[in-house]
């Protein structure tokens, strides 16, 4: 099966669970900005959760599949419909061969995901299909999708076949079939602006002036226009160090909040460099990275402190929920 790109929208890339194991070579991990949305999308169509899907930004694409396709939309609501039938998020959907998927624009959130049974079959580069545009790695020729691109779809798993059979069972041919089930609302984050993002205080927060340290927690930050998959620039509350500091470059993580000399913090996102030399004033709790990934330039956020123990407890609880959803899908399609 193939997927034709009739229009890519604003920025569409192939992304999977990320390019892990190469950061020591200076190679960014990349991968989906909203890891949870892509994982759930994949789960709903019977794929491995780390499989390659499409990530859309603010404006969705126009696509056509040459065969009957089992898909799931997740993440931002980009107003996607199939030949005029609005498609729900977070549910398996069967789209008949030849129908055109088109989009309006972001209704809620910033990044939408499309997972398809069998996943997008682009070449694996250094262990991942994720697109990293700056070094032209992964995806289609390492670049965003363009009008006229043709994406191959892999062979669906046995589970995908069973899910697809269940979804399209009671529908006539040639019509969109929407599953009566989907991801439970407990799994789905509610994307809002202003967002409250839980932050672990970073090693260098102690280098902030007392006033700036207080402002880190009280200020409302605005996501700057220069924000992208590499990082979010946070404006509106300049922070200051008590003294200029020279630090040696060292590893950073998805969600590390750096403070460059200008005073506007940068949150490092999926395409972050593997290492950095600016003071690390915080790290976003992993459970809130999906909320952050769904903020767009102009959106606002506040930080709230969280302890490491609490962040990991909530993370494990979420992983348990994801695991239960996975088990339930497998059980019902056994």
């Amino acid at each position, binding site marked *: 099966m193939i997927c034709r790109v009739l229009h890519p929208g604003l920025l569409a890339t192939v992304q999977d669970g990320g390019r*892990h*194991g*190469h*950061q*020591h*070579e*200076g*190679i*960014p991990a990349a991968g989906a900005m909203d890891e949870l949305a892509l994982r759930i999308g994949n789960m709903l169509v019977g794929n491995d959760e780390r499989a390659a899907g499409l990530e859309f930004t603010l404006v969705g694409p126009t696509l056509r599949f040459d065969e009957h396709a089992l898909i799931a939309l997740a993440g931002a609501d980009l107003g996607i419909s199939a030949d005029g039938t609005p498609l729900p998020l977070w549910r398996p959907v069967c789209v008949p061969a030849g129908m055109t998927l088109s989009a309006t624009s972001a209704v809620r959130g910033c990044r939408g995901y499309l997972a398809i049974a069998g996943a997008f079959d682009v070449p694996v*580069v*250094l262990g991942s299909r994720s697109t990293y545009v*700056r*070094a032209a*790695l992964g995806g289609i020729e390492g670049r965003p999708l363009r009008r006229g691109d043709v994406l191959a779809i892999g062979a669906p798993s046995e589970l995908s076949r069973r899910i697809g059979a269940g979804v399209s069972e009671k529908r006539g041919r040639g019509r969109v079939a929407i599953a009566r089930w989907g991801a439970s609302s407990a799994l789905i984050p509610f994307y809002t602006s202003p967002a409250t993002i839980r932050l*672990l205080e970073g*090693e260098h927060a102690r280098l902030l002036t007392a006033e700036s340290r207080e402002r880190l927690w009280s200020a409302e930050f605005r996501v700057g226009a220069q924000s992208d998959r590499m990082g979010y620039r946070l404006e509106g509350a300049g922070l200051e160090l008590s003294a200029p500091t020279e630090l*040696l*470059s*060292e*590893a*950073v*993580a*998805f*969600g*590390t909040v750096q403070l460059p000399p200008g005073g506007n913090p940068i949150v490092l996102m999926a395409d972050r*460099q*593997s*290492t*950095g030399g600016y003071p*690390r004033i915080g*790290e*976003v*709790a*992993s459970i809130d990275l999906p909320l952050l990934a769904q903020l767009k330039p102009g959106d606002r956020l506040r930080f709230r402190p969280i302890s*490491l*123990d609490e*962040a*990991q*407890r909530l*993370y*494990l609880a979420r*992983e348990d929920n994801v695991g239960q959803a996975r088990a339930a899908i497998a059980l019902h399609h056994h």
Partner: protein
Amino acid sequence: MSNLDLAPLGDRALLIRLGDAIDEATHRLVRAVTARLSERPVDGMIEIVPAFASVAVHYEPSRVPNGSHRGSPYARFAAAVETALSNLAGETLPPARTVEIPVCYGADYGPDLGEVARQHGLTADEVVGLHTGATYRVYMLGFAPGFAYLGGLPDEIATPRRAEPRTSVPAGSVGIGGSQTGIYPLASPGGWQLIGRTSLRLFDAGREPPTLLSMGDVVRFRAVAPDELALAAT
């Protein structure tokens, strides 16, 4: 080694701090820790990222075994890392490779060579002599795929970055930025003083390993003529 300095780097990574300066002793510790954790991966570990004076270990909290320890995933993971790093002094370091980089200095390949020479009251040949006469160490990779942070630049040619960064620097450009020297693996914007260019590919996703240089390598530069540079690329 019981006095390891471990700290969380967010809720899915841990940082092992091994010093606070760029020096050979700290670097040997970084290599020893990296070698040990590569040989004996700790359960839940995703990848290891060594730097000048630290080693980060990214891990998956849900895959850290419970064992007998009832603490947080971080507490359990950190304990396992400490155990894995015991008797580190006995760790034999993998032998350091020596990599020679042929460089065509000056002219279009190194448009700032004259400026670097002028700033230090040297001739262009003297700058090249100092740059090729030194032995460099790859302390870490970062910033871009295949970019090596090299230690060992002679103080005599340490040169501040350009006031106006270039919007595009060709791949393979050899530059000086402050007390560092390095090679741009990919065409990118950059503010370093460009003194030459190599035709070797610092990064090639289709190669195993994809980077020409690895942490711990010894690097020497060799001045070559433009026609020899073309040959080195084949």
